[in-house]
């Protein structure tokens, strides 16, 4: 049996760990709230840009733009959003497993796909497996501003335009609630499924519908990427919060069972001492 001191040490160290996980849980909870608010303040922009894009793309039949039309697929792009750090439960592995399996199923050789990784965990995962990572960004802030992501978003959209790949899928964790996040696959480019719930308006175009689509569509695609990033940041903090909550609970349980065996060992030691004294006294008589 472990000595009294060993058990005591374990209790202390577990207590310290649980303090850390508790603090991390609270930090994540605060960050999650903030991330949720960021996602909310992005909604008006997204709704508006979607409405206008839909009005133009669906409203006028005779406009065309490379980003709206499907072309034969020679290479597929995958944009994968993960976090930079672990300790977030199954947050990263869910996304990565999903992407990995899809790629294995769809493609035979690495020439058929390209990966754009946002987040260190995803980048390292694909690099280690020698998969074709063509673009990556790490250390995105917890509350990302659009300016931070603009560069990679416009490069990604640019790669579709110059035919580096012919379609682009986005993989990220969609934030449903604090306890539920779903891995989502979304086809980003070409923009074939534009729809709007609101009534379409017919606009005058200044100078022309084509000119406007040239500005509008890249901006729309970039904002979809930004929206997904905000969504997955909220998921990340929620996942980390849950993971840390579980860790804290486990630590508490462990401390309870350790204190029980500590008390038992202490009692055993006392009993033994008493027996020894009584035995000693009896021997003297």
């Amino acid at each position, binding site marked *: 049996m472990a000595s009294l001191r060993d058990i005591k040490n374990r209790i202390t160290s577990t207590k310290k760990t649980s303090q850390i996980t508790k603090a991390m849980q609270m930090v994540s909870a605060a960050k999650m709230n903030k991330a949720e608010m*960021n996602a909310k*303040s*992005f909604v*008006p*922009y997204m709704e*508006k*840009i979607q409405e*206008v894009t839909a009005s*133009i793309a669906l409203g006028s039949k005779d406009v065309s733009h490379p980003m709206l039309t499907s072309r034969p697929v020679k290479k597929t792009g995958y944009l994968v959003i993960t976090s930079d750090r672990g300790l977030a439960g199954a947050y990263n592995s869910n996304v990565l497993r999903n992407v990995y399996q899809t790629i294995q199923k769809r493609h035979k050789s690495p020439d058929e796909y390209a990966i754009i990784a946002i987040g260190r965990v995803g980048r390292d995962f694909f690099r280690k497996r020698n998969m074709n990572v063509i673009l990556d960004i790490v250390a995105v802030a917890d509350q990302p*501003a*659009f*300016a931070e992501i*603009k560069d990679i978003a416009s490069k990604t959209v640019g790669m579709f335009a110059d035919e580096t790949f012919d379609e682009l899928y986005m993989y990220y964790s969609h934030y449903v609630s604090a306890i539920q996040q779903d891995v989502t696959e979304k086809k980003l480019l070409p923009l074939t499924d534009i729809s709007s719930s609101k009534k379409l*308006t*017919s*606009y*005058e*175009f*200044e*100078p022309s519908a084509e*000119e*406007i689509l*040239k*500005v*509008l569509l890249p*901006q729309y695609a*970039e*904002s979809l990427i*930004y929206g997904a990033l905000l969504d997955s940041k909220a998921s990340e903090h929620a996942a980390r919060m849950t993971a840390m909550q579980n860790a804290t609970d486990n630590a508490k349980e462990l401390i309870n069972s350790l204190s029980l065996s500590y008390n038992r060992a202490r009692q055993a030691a006392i009993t033994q001492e008493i027996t020894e004294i009584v035995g000693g006294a009896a021997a003297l008589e």
Partner: protein
Amino acid sequence: MKTIKVSVVTPDGPVYESDVEMVSTKAQSGELGILPGHIPMVAPLQIGAVRLKNGGKTDFVAVSGGFLEVRPEQVTILAQSAEQADEIDVERAVRAKQRAEQRLNEQKRENIDFRRAELALQRAINRIEVSERKF
């Protein structure tokens, strides 16, 4: 006087929301002034200032491109970044301007970085001018 509702929205949230008498800005095809009751219209914008006239005073918002959507009772400006005149970080804009100028001097013409530096310079100059209200 009749007014029209204006909102300037960026991915980071709304920047400006108010009722004004007239909106004037620089679209890619030239200067554009919008009064209440305008027909629905969409136009891409240049990097520049949006002037919003209300009563005697004029508000300035610096926008970096994006586009303008007009409806009879509402104008929406969607830009990837926008700041109101008094919220502009002038020091940062000045630094960005110097950086862009330096890069332009180093680079040879006709490459992508040159184009980007040029845009960065335009944005920086625009911010500085808007913050000084030089329009």
